[in-house]
């Protein structure tokens, strides 16, 4: 699949004879090298999950967040170069607060996606700027309901029911397509996302990973909340921890459910 554009790939302001801008395609390859990021739109909200590949055992679990909150009602999961992602998130936050101060209402997700996409696209227009090497999955809940967008390094942005980027995106997309998203609630969606990430994780190539998840749905009062899932190194059982508002019974229930689900998966 690797196609080298000899001579036409030196600058983002050069087209190749067959109409491609190679620099942008190379930027997309940087995204493909990162851990899988998926997002799904359930009937009452959005769930996003990131397969965070751990570079060193010395890293504190829960650090190096890949899912960022942009505004109360929306968040972004970043795949690719983390530093580039930070820049985009900062811009998105600034756009969201600016919109709120001018128009007096939270930025609609569609508008936010358009602004992020234009910003990413901006960096593909000048020779003195390199394209962002990250793909973004943006999920939010506004007055028109939950919405999921994906922004690629080229600046294209589409709205999706389910999206995946990164290493295992092909496998993840196949799995997402199997799900009946319009009938699923976010609570069920959380488990599905966790299962998919585990499934697409390549044990051979990348050993340790941390699963990071967030959701914004009716249950979280249309606000972005983090879901912590810790990978227990000893007996490979994930412990699913939902954010502060859930009760202990629910926590135990989710732990048990996640464990059985993974056992079923391992049994495949």
């Amino acid at each position, binding site marked *: 699949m690797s196609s080298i554009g000899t001579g036409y790939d030196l600058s983002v302001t050069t087209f190749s004879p067959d109409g491609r801008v190679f620099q942008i395609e190379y930027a997309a390859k940087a995204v493909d090298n990162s851990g899988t990021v998926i997002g799904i739109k359930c009937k009452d909200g959005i769930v996003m999950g990131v397969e965070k590949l751990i570079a060193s055992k010395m890293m504190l679990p829960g650090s190096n967040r890949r899912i960022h909150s942009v505004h109360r009602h929306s968040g972004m999961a970043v795949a690719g170069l983390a530093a580039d992602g930070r820049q985009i998130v900062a811009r998105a936050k600034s756009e969201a607060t600016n919109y709120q101060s001018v*128009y*007096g209402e939270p930025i609609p997700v569609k508008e936010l996606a*358009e602004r992020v996409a234009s910003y990413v696209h901006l960096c593909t227009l000048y020779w003195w700027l390199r394209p962002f090497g990250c793909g973004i999955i943006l999920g939010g809940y506004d007055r028109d309901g939950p919405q999921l967008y994906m922004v690629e390094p080229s600046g294209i942005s589409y709205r999706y029911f389910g999206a995946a980027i990164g290493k295992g995106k092909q496998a993840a997309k196949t799995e997402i397509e199997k799900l009946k998203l319009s009938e699923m609630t976010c609570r069920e969606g959380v488990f599905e996302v966790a299962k998919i990430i585990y499934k697409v994780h390549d044990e051979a190539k990348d050993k340790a990973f941390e699963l990071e998840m967030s959701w914004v749905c009716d249950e979280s009062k249309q606000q972005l909340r983090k879901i912590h899932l810790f990978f227990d190194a000893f007996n490979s059982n994930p412990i699913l921890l939902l954010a502060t508002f859930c009760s202990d019974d629910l926590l135990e229930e989710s732990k048990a459910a996640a464990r059985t689900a993974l056992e079923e998966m391992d049994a495949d």
Partner: protein
Amino acid sequence: MKTERKLEKQARTVRSGYLYILSLALSASRDTAKMDLNMDSNAPHSMGTTIIGVTYNGGVVLGADSRTSTGMYVANRASDKITQLTDNVYVCRSGSAADSQVVSDYVRYFLHQHTIQLGQPATVKVAANLIRLLSYNNKNMLETGLIVGGWDKYEGGKIFGIPLGGTLIEQPFAIGGSGSSYLYGFFDQAWKEGMTKDEAEQLVVKAVSLAIARDGASGGVVRTVVINSEGVTRNFYPGDKLQLWHEELEPQNSLLDILNSPTPEPMNI
């Protein structure tokens, strides 16, 4: 200028100091002086005004008088103070005519762009916020009180008052302009939650006509705009269609009736 000098001259010739003091008082309060015969037609046009915005069960009714004054002179006796911002949001203007027109024009422009980007009609709250930002950030230069009213599919009918200084306040009903001083008590008594469209419109027309009767800077006709899910309706109530109040009514059992008799003898009832 001329009047001042004339009066001062008179004062000098009069023995008592009373007229002199009166002339000083008059020259100090030029705006309200009834003896100000030299009007300045280049003075800023001010809308003395009475403006009202009222929510009802299903939408809003905006109402205003139609007098634009330049000092004592009525520059326009049939002006339209209810201006359109978008298809579903209108604003009632009061205070300086120029300032309120410029603010409305800017906000109409911003809202137009916003509607295109959003892909759907702007909400009343957004319109009100834009007006508020302009009013607040330019408070040193502007003198205009506005009432934004409209209907959107998320919140229904809403009224926002943006008085001088640029505060934004959402209210079930709002009154503004110089004539509104005479309506506070009236609304305290007459306002009810959940009125029908006709009740609300009648309330607005009655209120504006009461204010016109008492406020010298309000007058002319009463214009109303009704905004709801079905759209916008403009209504016009000319002076002769309005109810008469108190001293405007025909006198009944007035003591002046004795003048019509052949031998008027006062104090002989």
